[in-house]
């Protein structure tokens, strides 16, 4: 396992996908003054954002030690699907309007790995489409995790209280569960 600078073509593919999902220019803003690097572990390629000044030292740090992780973990690419990390969701939430706000009860339930039902939804923009990944926030705007919409935002009002709105992809309860 050794960190490498991300291949520019691969980075463009990834950032295009993120921008399409979370808004134009989001990837560039997330990257900021950092550089993207990857570490491959079997079929999984983990992406990290690191300060520019670390790049020169990456080679040296390998001697006798294995770099396990560095900087901000952005997510993992596995079977052509990019899974965002919990760590990147906080910065991402500040840059995007693709969010789903849930009630206190919904937040409790979500952090126990459960998905989001209509009765828990406080806010979901009408322009969001089924399949879209959204950041799940509580009423105070704190990041609880990531969900995939199972319904178009403009159809929310027509749903029954107990119908599924967002499928849980990852939540901060994972920090307790050790997932």
């Amino acid at each position: 396992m050794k960190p490498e600078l991300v291949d520019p073509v691969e980075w463009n593919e990834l950032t295009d996908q993120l921008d399409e999902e979370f808004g134009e220019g989001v990837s560039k803003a997330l990257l900021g003054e950092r550089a993207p690097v990857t570490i491959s572990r079997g079929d999984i390629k983990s992406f990290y954002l690191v300060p520019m000044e670390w790049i020169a030292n990456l080679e040296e740090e390998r001697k006798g030690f294995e770099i396990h992780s560095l900087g901000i973990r952005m997510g993992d690419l596995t079977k052509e699907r990019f899974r965002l990390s919990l760590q990147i969701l906080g910065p991402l939430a500040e840059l995007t309007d693709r969010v789903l706000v849930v009630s206190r009860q919904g937040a409790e339930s979500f952090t126990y790995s459960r998905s989001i039902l209509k009765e828990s939804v406080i806010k979901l923009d009408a322009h969001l489409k089924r399949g879209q990944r959204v950041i799940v926030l509580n009423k105070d705007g704190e990041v609880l995790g990531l969900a995939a919409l199972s319904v178009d935002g403009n159809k929310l009002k027509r749903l029954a209280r107990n119908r599924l709105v967002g499928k849980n992809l990852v939540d901060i309860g994972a920090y307790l569960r050790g997932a």
Partner: protein
Amino acid sequence: MSNKQLRQRAKDLAKQHGYLPYMIERYLALWGEEETIQFIEACEEQITTSIRANTLKIDAESLQTRLQLKRVTLKPVEWLDEGFWADFDVSPGSLFEYMLGYYYVQGVPSMTVTKVLDPRPGETVIDLAAAPGGKTTHIAQLMDNTGTVIAIDEDRQRIKSLESNIQRCGVSNAIILRGDAKKLDKLERTPDKILLDSPCSGEGLIPLDPSRKTSTSMADIRFCATREDELLEAAVNALPSGGTMVYATCSIAPEENEYIIDEILHRHSEMSVVPIPLEFGSLGYPRPYGVELNESMTLTRRFLPHLHGTEGFFICKLEKE
């Protein structure tokens, strides 16, 4: 008390309180009977839970307000701006605020170790035996996520906890390296500071884990002492001139603490023990069991269950000329 009498008394006390006799024998030689009994009694008391506000995510005052609403009573730790004694109705790790990374459940001695190191923004700091990350995340917090924290551990499973805590606490300036800390000389980085909270016998953790009354033999302590000496040697060799380091253990055994420091001072005239500018704990022992050690052992500090209501800990700050 003659040696024979001491052994017999140790045997009696050990039997009465469920310890291995060699442990009580050492405590009697170190502290005398009255203090040994105070220690034994204190080890039966529960240690008060403590948490560290993670100021990378929330200020200490806001955290206090939020936790009060959840009936958590916090009392500041005098020498730690971000440290609190905490009384929870529920498991301290079960609240939203924990998952959000607003606090870290951490013993007061452990928080104190990082405060003694005094990492500053922009520095390069190496944290040896870093998992599960209490001190790594605290270092990053005190550096305001600037500079570089190099967290080293050897165990793959424990590294997972380290990474999880780093992410939960919003740390962005850490590099996790897996490897043998004794090979620190291969790391081509010049640190400003090194923290070695060494793997140890854990003899200071009896109040938290009573099984330690019988689980560690004298041979285990000797084994730990050898490893501690090797790790400290590696850390000293990696530290540049003018660099600072902190050596700590959660053991109360002088064999793992003052003896180790005394040895390193013998081998490295360029190293010296320096005063700790914080008011906590009690002084280290310059003459444990009657053995004369370097007088600067009085600059080291100890936390002891019967004197400070915490788990036992040893903290020593060193500088290289």
